[in-house]
């Protein structure tokens, strides 16, 4: 286990929507090592994007962090001032890429202008005012583009965003997000909007650049296949909780939580033509009306009485493999460790 870079302890977060209170994150505990790629998977509304946004404190106003801490390099990000977040963390140490790069690029400015603007701001916060020439920033922008594998960056830098395809825009975003100063990259469905062959290119790029700079990656996606190829470890979330966490290969080969197992069974890639897919009955519950006990029990094929009453804690069921299922724990596993 590499030295931890990010440790999230007991993070609990509510959305207060008028009379409705939704628990979007419930006692999230995990740590992310330096240079590690952690995948976060789950169906929509499970809180995976909220988790990424909570780390950067980019949450909407209705969100309220109830308790917990986000330790990043030994500092609790939740107690930093807004100014400290802006000057030292966001865009500097922790960067984020989103599903739609076109929303992040202003259509009326040239790519180069937008890149140098960001570089100038970063430089200002880092060096505290040592003046650099425009030419230096432009050169830096060209280098960043070159890193991301965009052909002919000198000419491309004076193009407008509409002249770039979706994949190329995402390359620009990655080029801006990943540099030697970045220690954590949050990727929120970064390749969901792209075609498979482009998706493969982009994922390869993220992996290469992250390895080059020793950057840790928190890769949020609903696509389990992508995580199988990208992530060292994955966690599977459901209704604001972590249900299972462990080495990617272990989780996919031998899932310990019934939800993870069912999710894997419902993928067509694992089934041959003509055989029915396993479909999990029912729906993901709305966050303001979660069932009692284990929130998965109404859909779980193995649910017992106890599942309705007790909330299962996340327990290390095997070396580095965590699962939150009461039945698994009842069966008497080697290690019992409560957090």
């Amino acid at each position, binding site marked *: 286990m590499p030295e931890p870079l990010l440790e999230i302890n007991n993070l609990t977060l509510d959305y207060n929507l008028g009379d409705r209170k939704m628990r979007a994150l419930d006692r999230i505990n995990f740590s992310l090592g330096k240079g590690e790629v952690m995948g976060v998977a789950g169906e929509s509304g499970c809180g995976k994007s909220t988790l990424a946004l909570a780390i950067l404190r980019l949450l909407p106003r209705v969100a309220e962090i109830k308790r917990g801490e986000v330790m990043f390099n030994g500092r609790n990000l939740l107690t930093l001032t807004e100014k400290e977040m802006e000057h030292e963390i966001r865009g500097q140490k922790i960067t984020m890429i989103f599903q739609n790069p076109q929303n992040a690029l202003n259509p009326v400015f040239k790519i180069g202008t937008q890149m140098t603007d960001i570089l100038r701001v970063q430089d200002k916060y880092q060096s505290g005012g040592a003046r650099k020439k425009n030419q230096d920033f432009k050169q830096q922008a060209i280098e960043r583009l070159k890193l991301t594998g965009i052909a002919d960056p000198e000419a491309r830098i004076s193009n407008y965003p509409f002249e770039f395809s979706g994949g190329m825009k995402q390359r620009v975003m990655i080029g801006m997000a990943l540099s030697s100063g970045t220690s954590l990259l949050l990727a929120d469905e970064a390749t969901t909007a792209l075609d498979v062959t482009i998706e493969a290119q982009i994922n390869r790029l993220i992996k290469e650049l992250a390895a080059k700079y020793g950057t840790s990656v928190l890769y949020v996606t609903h696509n389990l296949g992508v995580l199988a190829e990208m992530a060292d470890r994955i966690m599977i979330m459901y209704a604001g909780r972590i249900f299972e966490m462990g080495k990617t290969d272990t989780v996919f080969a031998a899932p310990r939580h019934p939800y993870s197992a069912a999710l894997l069974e419902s993928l067509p890639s694992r089934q041959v033509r003509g055989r029915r897919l396993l479909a999990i009955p029912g*729906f993901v519950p709305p966050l*303001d*009306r979660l069932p009692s006990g284990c929130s998965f029990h109404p859909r779980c094929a193995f649910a017992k009485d106890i599942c309705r009453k007790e909330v299962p804690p996340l327990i290390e069921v095997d070396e580095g493999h965590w699962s939150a299922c009461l039945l698994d724990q009842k069966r008497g596993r080697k290690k019992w460790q409560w957090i």
Partner: protein
Amino acid sequence: MNTESTQQTEVGCPPGQLMFKRKWTDTLRVTFRAVIKVKGGLWGGIFISIMLICAIGAQWIAPSDPNAQDIMSRFAAPSRDHFFGTDYLGRDIFSRIVYGCRIAVLVAFGTVTFSSVIGVFLGVVSGYNEGKKLDYFIIWLFDIIRSFPQIILALGIVAVLGPSLFNVVIALAFTAFPFYGRIARAQTLSVKQADYVKAAEAMGLKPFQIIMRHITPNIMAPVIVCLGMDMATMIVWESGLSFLGLGVRPPEASWGIMLRNGYKYMQTSPWMLLWPALAISLAMIAFSLFSEGLRVALDPKERER
């Protein structure tokens, strides 16, 4: 099966009976409730209701006949006998304002009904036949009418037809319908691209059915908002035409005529000018606020806030 949908239906379905349609009263109630949730919408709604009540029940609300002259009490200041005072013929201004509501409401609703029905119909037809000859012809028609300044055109029409309430409505509707046509056409062009229109085409529906069932209901939201705005404008225009002597014939109690009579005596009896001016302004503000409320209520994105 429906455990997932978080929204509760506001309209109940009687058990054992299958309903496809929501009653239109239900739809109206739901929309109205959303409008008055918006602060301005509530105030606009209140004032418009007052206007409607005045318009319908003018003979019971007005303390005296609006045209009854009382030479003895000419230019009387507001008092207990005459709430708003009297004019140069000794007519009770309060009664005239109340009766004036009737004309304002008639003009406002009459014009927008005429102009929106014609305009929306032509706009949808032209948008649906985009790029065809019919489309070009309708746009050409709109553009010709719109190329005249609206008030001049209205003046001209009334001058030809002769001043009367009905002719004012016709004239104003004629100048306003291309405006609705343009909105309806632009909306149709975007709604036409929607998958549900494609689905209807792929199902084999005839163009007329597609227009009536799938396009028109979905372009109405911005049209209805404009209706509200336009009612305010139409009230002002009617007053303008009456003010110029081309609107409703005196001694009919129109706010515009009252304005015309009032401004001559502005120095000595300001109430003759004040009350009709106030009524026009309030009516205008009320319709604007109400249509803003409608805009919010009809926009699903805004409603969620």
